[in-house]
C-alpha cells in the first residue's frame, strides 16, 4: 500500500513541477529563454524508490510531457529510460546522502536529456549555428538553476512523503 502511495505522491509532485515549470517558461518566453529541468522529474524516483516504481513514474511523466508537445509520442519516454539505465548502472557508486553526488547526477542527467532531445527532435536545425546558440543559452540557465534547486527539491519530495509517513531516508540502506 505504502509503495502505491509513494508512486502516486511522487507523480503528483511531478505534475506540480510540470505545471510550475510551464508557468515560469511562459514568463520567460518573451526573452526567448526556456527552462528544461527534466532531471528533477526523475532523480528522486530513480535514486530513492524501487526500480519498478522509478520506471513507472518516469514512464507516466514522460507520456504526460510528450502528449502536449510536437514530438513523436514517446521521445521523452525513451530519453528517460536511457537516463534511468545510466542511473541504475551508477546506483552503487552514487551516495544518495551525499549532496554533491545528487547535484552531479542531476546535472548530467539533465544535460543528457536536453542533448538527446535536440538530436532527436532538431533534425534540420542541427546544422544551424543559431540553434546551438539558443540550446547553449537554455542549457546554461537550466543547469544553473538545477544546481541550486536539486537538493532543495529532493528534500522537498522527502518531506512530502513524510506527510504520508513514508521515510525514504531510513530505507536507503536497502540499496
Amino acid at each position: 500500500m505504502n509503495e502505491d502511495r509513494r508512486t502516486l505522491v511522487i507523480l503528483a509532485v511531478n505534475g506540480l513541477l510540470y505545471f510550475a515549470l510551464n508557468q515560469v517558461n511562459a514568463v520567460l518566453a518573451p526573452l526567448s529563454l526556456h527552462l528544461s529541468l527534466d532531471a528533477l522529474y526523475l532523480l528522486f524516483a530513480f535514486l530513492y524508490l524501487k526500480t519498478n516504481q522509478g520506471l513507472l513514474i518516469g514512464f507516466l511523466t514522460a507520456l504526460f510531457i510528450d502528449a502536449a508537445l510536437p514530438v513523436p509520442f514517446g521521445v521523452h519516454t525513451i530519453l528517460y529510460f536511457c537516463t534511468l539505465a545510466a542511473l541504475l548502472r551508477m546506483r552503487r557508486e552514487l551516495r544518495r546522502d551525499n549532496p554533491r553526488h545528487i547535484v552531479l547526477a542531476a546535472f548530467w542527467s539533465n544535460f543528457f536529456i536536453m542533448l538527446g532531445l535536440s538530436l532527436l527532435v532538431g533534425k534540420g536545425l542541427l546544422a544551424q549555428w543559431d540553434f546551438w546558440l539558443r540550446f547553449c543559452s537554455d542549457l546554461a540557465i537550466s543547469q544553473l538553476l538545477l544546481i541550486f534547486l536539486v537538493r532543495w527539491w529532493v528534500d522537498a519530495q522527502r518531506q512530502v512523503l513524510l506527510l504520508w509517513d513514508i521515510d525514504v531516508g531510513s530505507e536507503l540502506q536497502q540499496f
Partner: protein
Amino acid sequence: MVRKIPHATKPIVLLLGLLLTWLLLPAVFKSYSRAGFFEFQAPLWVTAAEFKNLGDSWALRAHSKKELYETGRDLARLNSAYELKLQEIDALRDELSRLERILVLPSLPRFQYRIARVVRRDQSSWWQQLVIQKGKLHGIPVGAAVVYSGGVVGRIREVHAYTSVVELATSPGFRMAAHFDNDERPVTYQGAVNLPFSSPRGKVMNVPPDVVVTASVPRRLTSSRLGGVFPDGLTIGWVNRLTTSPDGLFQSGQPYLDKNLLSLKEVAVLIPLGTGGTP
C-alpha cells in the same frame, strides 16, 4: 538452470527490453494514449488560465469608481467608433459583392473568427507553440489561420475537445506564402530559431532579385491569400536586409517579428466560411 543476469548488465537489459516493448506497441495505442494524456492535462491549463483571469479581475476591482467610470466612458466611445467601422465594412462588403457580380469574379475567401484565450505557451529552441482555449467543440479546424491585432500568429496544428494547439509563426516548422507590401509576387516565409534576449525572427526565401529593401526603409512582409490559409495583408514582420543567392535567382532575408507574439494572451482563429462548425 536459469542463469542470473549479472548486476552490471541488468540496467542495459532492462533498457533494451523497455525500448523494444515501446517500439512494438501499436501506433493506434500510442495515438489514443497521447490524446488521453492531453485531454487529461487540458483542464489543468484551462483552470490555470481561469485563475489568471480571476486574478486579473480582482486586480481590476482595486480600481476606484472614478477610474471605472472613465474607462467605461472610453470604452463606450470606442464601441461607437467600432460600430461605425462595422457599418462601413458592411457597406464595403456589399459593394465588393456587387462588383464581383458585375465583373464575374470569383468571390474572395471569407472567414468567421473565434476569439480564444491562450492557456499555455511552449517556446523553446525545439518547438514554438501555444495552447488556446477553443477546440473541436467550438468548430476549430486543423490548419486554420490564427491571428492577433499585430498580424499573423500561426496555424492550428492539433485540435482537441476544447483546446487547440497553435504552431507559432516563429517555429522552424511553420511555413507560409507571403508577399511584400505593393508586390503581389509570393515569397516563402518560414519560422526560425529565436535567439535569447532578442526579437523573434523568421526567414524569408524565394524573394525575386528585383525586390529592394534597405535598413533605412524596411519593407513589411504580409500574408498572401494565394497560400489559401491566410487572408491577404496580415503583417508577418519587417525585412530590412536581403541577400542574393550565388545563383542569382532569389534573395533571402530575416524578417523581424513583433515581440508581443511571444506573450500573447488572446488570439483569433480564422475559420473559412463553410468549413467551420457552429460558434
